Structures are given as structure tokens and as C-alpha cells.
């Protein structure tokens, strides 16, 4: 089968800094990809390029057969994007916000309203759906964002830190939703810091460090490639952050310094 996401020689530079270096990826339909890396590794930038938000980059990126540089609109129609750090219009109510987003995808008003209400209800937000989001907690906003990203039933879902701020019950629910989405043939590409979630639900794990892919394979593959232990161990080994015990010791030492 043809790849749904394919990048060739993807490179992104901001002024002098190179954020992404020669990223080559082929992602098959129905795959769940866990995209992990330390802060500032280029995770969000990769996702923003794949979703057509940042049109200036070097190399080729195709999503669902569309070149995201020239056919961004066609690609955007079929993908869902859930950004990090709860970016939404807080002065609106969840219903108003979802109706706004739904209309941008040219869904029928009745469809939007019915879907939004049902999804909010499933996320335990039924009581708050007519309240402004200024007072919402981060987790509540994250739920609204999750719905906003999936309202148009996209073929590929891009999630940037989808679990941040969610309480334990919501994390389990979102995990299950991702599993169900995968079963219905959707492709999921998400970045996260929560290693055990990535370990459990990803078909494939891609580790990026300083703009370069340093590992790409299933959890068992990564595990077999001479690195033993949990994903967390593999991650720290690969990203060259092996001295964490030593650093922690120095940290305590520094607190005791006079």
C-alpha cells in the first residue's frame, strides 16, 4: 500500500538554526506512530510542516498523496490536528468554538451541533458546554481541542502532546479512543513525553534528537537493537542523556552548597 505520510529530505531552518535535518519517513495507513524526543528536538515543527501550517521548508512532504506545499488545503480537509498548549478562543463556549471549527470544514450546522453535543457529553463536559472556556482547567480545554481536531472525522490524526493536563481517567479514555480509531483504519501520528503510553499503543516509535531521527521501529525492534529495558531507558540511552543519576547527585549537592 502507498504511504499516507511520506517525507524526503525534510529540512527546516530558522534563520541560522537548523531545526530539522534530512528527515525521511514513510508511514502506512492504519499505523500508530509515537514521535518522541527531548524538548526542542523538532517534534512540533515536524507536525506543523506535515499539517501544512508551515509552508516554508526544504525537501518533499506528501500527506495522503497531496504535496503539503502546493495542495495544503486538500490535505488539511482530511487531517485532524490537535495542538499543544491548549490554544483555543477562550472567550467562546465549547459549543460555539466547535461550531466555529466545524464550519471551517464546511460541515452542516446540524451535523456539527449533534456531533459536538454528543462528544462533549462523552467527555463529561455536558454541563459546561454553554460556559465560556476562560474558567476551564487545562484538561477541560484539552478535551475540547481533541473534539475540535476530530469533529470532521479525519483520515489522519496529528496530536501534539495530546495527554498533557488530562486526569488519569481522561488519559485512559483518550488511549482507548486512539486504539479504536486505529481499528477503524485511521492513521495516528502523535508526539508525547509520557513514555509508557507511547510504549503501549504505538505500532512504531520514532525518536528524534536535535532535528535528526535516531531510532525508528517497533518497541520490540528498538528493544532488541542491543538496548535493554523500558522505552524510558532506551530513550535516555539514545538521546545521550545517560548521566542523569550523576546530574541528580550534583543537583542535591548544589542545594547544600553554602
Amino acid at each position, binding site marked *: 500500500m502507498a504511504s499516507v505520510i511520506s517525507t524526503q529530505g525534510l529540512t527546516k531552518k530558522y534563520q541560522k538554526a537548523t531545526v530539522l535535518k534530512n528527515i525521511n519517513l514513510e508511514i502506512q495507513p492504519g499505523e500508530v506512530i509515537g514521535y518522541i524526543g527531548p524538548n526542542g528536538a523538532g517534534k512540533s515543527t515536524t507536525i506543523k510542516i506535515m499539517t501544512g501550517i508551515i509552508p*516554508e521548508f526544504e525537501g518533499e512532504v506528501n500527506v495522503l498523496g497531496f504535496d503539503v506545499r502546493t495542495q495544503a488545503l486538500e490535505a488539511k*480537509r482530511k487531517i485532524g490536528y490537535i*495542538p499543544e498548549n491548549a490554544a483555543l*478562543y477562550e*472567550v467562546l463556549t465549547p459549543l460555539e468554538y466547535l461550531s466555529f*471549527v466545524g464550519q471551517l*470544514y464546511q460541515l452542516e450546522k446540524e451535523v456539527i451541533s449533534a456531533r459536538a453535543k454528543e462528544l462533549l457529553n462523552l467527555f463529561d463536559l455536558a454541563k459546561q458546554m454553554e460556559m465560556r472556556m476562560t474558567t476551564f482547567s487545562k484538561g477541560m480545554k484539552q478535551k475540547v481541542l481533541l473534539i475540535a481536531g476530530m469533529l470532521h472525522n479525519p483520515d489522519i490524526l496529528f496530536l501534539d502532546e495530546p495527554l498533557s493536563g488530562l486526569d488519569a481517567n481522561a488519559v485512559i479514555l483518550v488511549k482507548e479512543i486512539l486504539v479504536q480509531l486505529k481499528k477503524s483504519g485511521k492513521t495516528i501520528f502523535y508526539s508525547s513525553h509520557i513514555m509508557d503510553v507511547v510504549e503501549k499503543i504505538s505500532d512504531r516509535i520514532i525518536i528524534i534528537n536535535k532535528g535528526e531521527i535516531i531510532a525508528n521501529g517497533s518497541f520490540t525492534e528498538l528493544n532488541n537493537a542491543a538496548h535493554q529495558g523500558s522505552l524510558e531507558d532506551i530513550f535516555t540511552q539514545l538521546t545521550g542523556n545517560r548521566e542523569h543519576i550523576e546530574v541528580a547527585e550534583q543537583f542535591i549537592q548544589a542545594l547544600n552548597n553554602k
Partner: protein
Amino acid sequence: MIAFLIRFISLFKWLYNWMGVDFQQMKTIVATKLLMDNRRHVVGATSQKDGNVNASFIGVMVIYGILGLFFSYIIYVIPSFLISMTMYHSYLILMVSLTLVSDFSSVLLDTSDNTIILPRPVSSKTLLAARVTHIVIYLTQITIALSLGALVATFIKFGWVIGFLLMITTILSLLFALILTNGLYLVLMRFTSEEKLKNIINYFQIAMTFLMMGAYQILPRLMSKNFLEDSSFVLTWWAALVPPMWMAGLLDIFYSSTVDSVHVVCALFAIGFSVVAAFLMSKFFSSTFSEKLADLGTTNVAAEPKQNRSGFLLGTRNIITTQGIERASFDLVSAALARDRKLKLKIYPSIGSIVILAVVVVFNGKESFQGTLNNLSNLSAHIFLIYSVFLVIQTIMTQVCISDYFKAGWVFNAAPINKPGLVLLGSWKAVLASFFVPIYGVITVFVVLIWKTNGVDDLIFGLVANIFVTLITIIVSSKHFPLSLEPNAKNQAGNFVKVILIMMIIGAIGFGHYLLTKVEYGLWISFPLIIGLTYFCYAKVKASTWSQIDLG
């Protein structure tokens, strides 16, 4: 209101479709933006009701309306049609551009669109159209307030043909201002970083506020100038370089029926520029604009390390503050005063008001400059000037408690602070060192230049008296930690009764000072008293307890 505006936009559906804009999407975005505008400034933002009244917006409209009335007067009294029209259009373009930069920049450069709208299937053309439509709606409301007075005056004085044409040139001026500012943004975005762009906008905002205040004082003074009474003014070739004159020239064709090359060139420029520029904007700029905007949110180029505070401030800091809590508070507040844009926006215009005040006090008479100067040194106007500094310091002291990041104020409550009075003192000293000392220094130079040695004793006494009143203010006001109050209407306005009280105190001190100058050695005799009082207040602020602190 929103429903009405949207229905009105729908009349132009064909135009949008013709430009290749997705009308449904655009309508959705504009309607949502208008809804959010309505909710933005509503007093008591916690209420869940749909407030359709935007208090601050109405306030702006009233001010603009008054300025507009002023221009109806100008049109009525100035004999030269060309001059009055040039003035009107200059004023319109200036006001609209400045409003766009200062008031509307947050909407124009809203980077939350990056994550909210850019991932959706919305073409950059549609997004730009939505932005422009949103701006045009906003501007139309403002322009109506600004131009209504002038339009009515024109209809009455020059008849309906000129009046109707003035409506057209008003719209052309609006377009011109819109293109001007949009172009400015594009250029700035092209060449500067986000941080610099925000700084530049900040300066525009300061200039705008300053101008609004100055306009009331300075415009009436201009009125008496001779050149405005010259009715024989004619258009020459250089009018082609001055956009407001294009509009005036266009109107003059119909007013005085002169059709010469200069008039025709003006008319062509007036109409041509707007059309061509609008075309260019939609053709070339739309994609650049949203791309640049996308970059605004994402560029995380490490900011070059800034040179940390001036040597003067650092030097004084070590002398006037004690180690620990007080110095920490001093550092925090002096850094905020130097960097927080919102704080600067509130502070600098009030400093400007002193300058205007000085000009008004000094050059009030109709006499010549030299005559005024000679008279001045006999008057006691400098006392007025000395105590006007307090008004600025008072504004800063109130503002320094308010911050967008008020939530960070928890540190004061979490830290084991045994003497909260030290926090207040540190903050107070930072305000004095950053603003009071420099402003008072300039005033000292000014007073010594004009009043010579006569003013020296007043300056010394005034210095202590000013400091004394700032301390009194802290004592009688509710005490807040710096940067710890939410910026809402209640906190911004302050307690009216207390403000009046403080004004009375400064008035009394100023008047007392004036009376003392009438007594021989009066100032010198009361000097120990004011020093003593100041020290007493200082100790009182320092001894503030936790129960006296208003945690908001």
C-alpha cells in the same frame, strides 16, 4: 448587531466570490471574531451573559466623536476650502492609521490564529479577507464617529454635492490608511523579529495616547495662527506628494471648478492609489502575510543577551536598599518598569502630560516668546511644575501593582516574608529611582534655567515634599504587592474617594509651599518638619504588617 453586520457583508458576497474567497468560511471567521471582540473588554469578565456592550469601545467612540465635532468647527471657520479639507483628511488618515496600529494590532497580529485557523482547510486568501473585513467593520464604526461632525458641517456649508463627495474621499482616506498600516506591518515583519515588532507597536501606542492628550491642548492654540486665515492658498506640484492633498484636490475640482494639471493628478492619485494598492495586497501580499504570521509564533531564536539595567540604577540600588526582601522587590519592579510593554504604555503618556502641562503653563499668554520668558520668572508657576511630578509617580505606583502575570504574585505569599513592608518599600524605591529621579532632574534643569537661583530652595523643599506625599499615598491606599493585581476595570480605576483624598493632599502641600514662599525663610524653617514627617511615614510603611496588605 453582529447578525446585522453579517447580513450587511452578505450583500458583497459576489465581490468575495469574485476574488476567490470562500464566503461561508470567511463569514464564520468574521462572526466569531466580532463575537469575541464584544466579550473582550466587558466589565466584570467573569459573568457568563452575552454582553453586547463593549464599554471601552464606546468610550473611544465618544472621544473620537468629540474630536470629530472639533473638525466640524475647523471646516466652518477656515476660509480656505483647500486647507480645511487637507486638514480634515490628514487628521482622518493619521487617526485611523494610529488606531489601527495601537488599538487593533493585537487583533491583526493575533498568533492564536496560527494554531486555531491555519490547520483548518482555509486558504490564506480567505483568511486575509476575513481579517480585512473584520478590520473594515471596526474602522467603519470609528470613521463614522470621527467624520460625522465634519460631514454634517460640509453638507451645511458647501451643499450636498461636496458633502457626498466628501463621503467618498473619506472612504478613500480610510483605504489609504488601511493599506499604509498593512504595508507597514508587512515591511516590519519582513525585516524585524517578533519582539522588535511588538516594541515598535508599543511605541506607536505610546505616541497615540500622547497625541490624543496633546490634541486637546495644542490644536486650539494652532487655531489662532495666521496661516490658517489665508484664503488664497493654491495647489502646487508638491501636493502630489501629500496624500491628504490628493483628496482635497479631488474635492476642489468640484468646489471651485478648476481643472488644471495639478488637480487632475491629485484626483487620479486619490482614486488610483487605493485601487492599485488593494489589488496588489490581494495579489501578492496575502500569502506572504499569513506565512510571516505563521513564523511569528514559531521562531524561537534565542534572544541575544540584553545589557542588564543601567549603571545608575545598579549603583543607587546598592545604596538605597537593604539586602534581601527589599532588594529583591526593587529588582523585580525596576526590571518590570523597564521591560513590561503594558506598563510602559500606561506610564510614558503620563510623563508626556507633564511636558504638555509645562508648555501650557509656560506659554499661556499671547505675548511673544521672549516676553513670556521675562514674565515667567516673576511668577510662581514652577511650584505647580514641581508638584505635577507627583501625578506621574502616583500613576506609576498604581500601575506597578497591576500585571497580566498577576498570578505569579503567589511567590510573595509563599515566601517566608516577615516584614511585608520591605516589599512595599523596595517597589516604591524602584519607582523613585527609575522615574522620579530622572523626571525631577529634568525639571530641576528647566527651573534653574528660567528661575535661576530663585527656584533652588523650592526645588529642595519640593523634592522632600514629593517623596513625603508618595509615602502618604502608600499609607492611605490599600496596600498591594507589586505586579500582583489582575488588570480589570475595578483595579485600574482605583478607589475614587482615595484618589480625591490624595489629590487634596498634594493640592494642600503645593498651596502650603506657595504660602511659605511668602514668608521670609519660611521654607527653611519648615524644612526640618517635612523631613521629620517623611521619616515618620517611611518608618510606618516599613512596619506594615501582613494584616494591612490587601491580597486582592
